[in-house]
């Protein structure tokens, strides 16, 4: 890392020896009052959301939206295909063609259950993935953290904390000292490019 200041500072990052150290350090960063910071680890650490003071993930809201869309879509589709109602005809025009098989009623709930179920599941999955991408800011192929030479090990066995320079409490000298005081090693400047 060159200390040349032609690049804007992204923040300071430090490495920790183990998941336990990272967990306790994260609690201290949280208690200090930092807001714009993150923990990086090779696997999700149990309880880290609390240690960081994050709330519950809202991905499941997107799942619920997907589920509602899927169920409504299935219902609408079967109604459209099975009913010769005036409203349906208005929407579908000549494309509507109710199929009467074996003299059964045009719409029945029981044989529609598999379709309701499968489309609900399918759109729940889409909603969940969309939620993950939107809330997790994925895909983001480049990120300043990748400029840090130690960061390769985040997907191997490295445990890191990064505090961003745009945090209200950030101060170059103090934050560096703080990261060292909570057990961080190799505290480094991480720069944007």
């Amino acid at each position, binding site marked *: 890392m060159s200390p040349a200041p032609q690049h804007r500072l992204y923040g300071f990052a430090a490495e920790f020896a*183990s*998941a*336990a150290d*990272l*967990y*306790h350090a994260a609690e201290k960063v949280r208690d200090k009052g930092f807001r714009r910071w*993150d*923990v*990086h*680890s*090779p*696997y*999700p*650490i*149990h*309880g*880290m*959301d609390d240690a960081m003071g*994050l709330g519950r*993930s809202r*991905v*499941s809201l997107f*799942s619920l939206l997907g589920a509602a869309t899927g169920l409504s879509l299935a219902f609408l*589709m079967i109604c459209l*295909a099975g009913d010769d109602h005036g409203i349906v005809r208005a929407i*579908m025009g*000549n*494309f*509507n*063609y*109710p*199929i009467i*098989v074996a003299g059964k009623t045009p719409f029945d709930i029981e044989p*529609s259950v*598999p*379709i309701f179920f*499968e*489309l609900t*599941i*399918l759109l*729940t*999955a889409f909603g*969940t*993935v969309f939620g*993950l991408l939107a*809330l*997790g*800011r*994925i*895909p*983001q*192929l*480049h*990120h300043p*953290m990748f400029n840090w030479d130690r*960061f*390769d090990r985040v*997907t*191997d*066995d490295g445990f890191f904390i990064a505090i961003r320079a745009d945090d209200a409490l950030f101060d170059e000298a103090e934050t560096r000292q703080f990261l060292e005081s909570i057990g961080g090693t190799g505290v480094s400047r991480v720069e944007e490019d």
Partner: protein
Amino acid sequence: MADGTAIPTHPEAHLVARQPLVLNRRPMAWITDHVARIVEDKSKMWWWIATLIAGSIAALVPIQLVYLVSTGVGVWGLNHPVGWAWDITNFVFWIGIGHAGTLISAILFLTRQRWRTSINRSAEAMTIFAVICAGIFPAFHVGRLWMVWFLAPAPNANVIWPNFKSPLLWDVFAVSTYFTVSLIFWYIGLIPDFATIRDRAKDPIRKFIYGLLAVGWRGSNRQWSHYEKAYLVLAGISTPLVLSVHSVVSFDFATSVIPGWHTTIFPPYFVAGAIFGGFAMVLTLLIPCRWLFGLQDLVTTKHIDNMCKIVLLTGTIVGYAYMMELFIAWYSGNPYEWHAFLRNRIADPYIIGPAAGVPPAPYWWAYWSMMFCNVIVPQFFWFKPCRQNAWLALILVMGPNIGMWFERFVIIVTSLHRDFMPGAWGHFVPTINDILLFSGTIGLFVFLFLLFVRFFPMITMFEVKAVLPEADPHHHPAPRPDAGHNAGAIQADVRSILGARDAKAKGGRA
């Protein structure tokens, strides 16, 4: 704890201690290295040979399909009265195999079975490849492939909608949903491990490709938090989904009025059979893989043992279902149903059959192969040596692998070939095209799996790391030399506290 720092325990404590999920106390870097190296090293000679052979067999699939489409579906041996034969047998066989992958990735996740972590990736890959093989058959058995889009509920100029009351259409929805959700689930699971390959890559092209696949993953806890929630939701929806898929497949048969098909036991019986056959296939793939790649510390004997137990459990459920189906065929008093079982399946062709003036049914051997492979063979897994010896287990699971194919063949062909009218009775013989296409799908399945183990991380590294003891943030590293004394002191403390509490409780009551 051989280093002498152990807390004094009962001499037989090891008998009840849980076996660790990763043997030999491997550190995280070891796991990363051993799994990622499979993708990074040069391909081994056996891999080239195996891939070449499997790829050549897989080439039969396009060849046979071109021949089928250009000639007509009559190149298969099916005809009246056996209108469904190997095509639907193979479809149900392959789709059933997929079920074990989803069971491992979703149901074992929800039930917190931590041993699933080292086998779920390859089992999910197996699911995807099995569903690809399965999808070929229903798509092409329609004969006129260019009309297959009529299955989709798309408004079209012929003003024809699909019949939403038909189980065949439910199948279209169930199987396509199953494939899509399995693929999503698999890919979401792969993202952090693709990032590992990206971060280890020296070659810029490799780094770029795996970087794209890893979608910029950087192990941030703000991402992990959403990731875990998404994974939980996907596991939650995959669980009913996997149970529904084979239930819907069984409706193809159960909602008809053919004797031998028209049975309410089919949905649970098909689901149990699917999990049974699927676990057999997981074992078939993983036992050689763990040996070839030296992954015995990750896919341990305990994993093999657990999977054998699931094969035993589901195999016994399947055996029960066979017996119950047979019993109800007799107990229902329905002569057609009983005929389908006694004459067409059990088919004692040489004793009661001729005596009753019935010509011997030709498929009795298929029924008894099924019974032997699916009911008798898995019972060996009651014995521990059969579960602990991986190679013995590999031989035994060939039973379910073969038996589950015969099960579908028996259900489909024996029921159809002799139904209500003796004048319409017939016989099914597969043609060479039936045989070559099915062989081709086996080749395709193995070929895709070989590509998978070579280019994708075949073990979920990040999940295996998460089940290591040191992964727990409340884990305390190696005990200090005086831990023994401490433990003694703590025990003494506990005893005195408990004693005081007991004394207090007694005093309170007095």
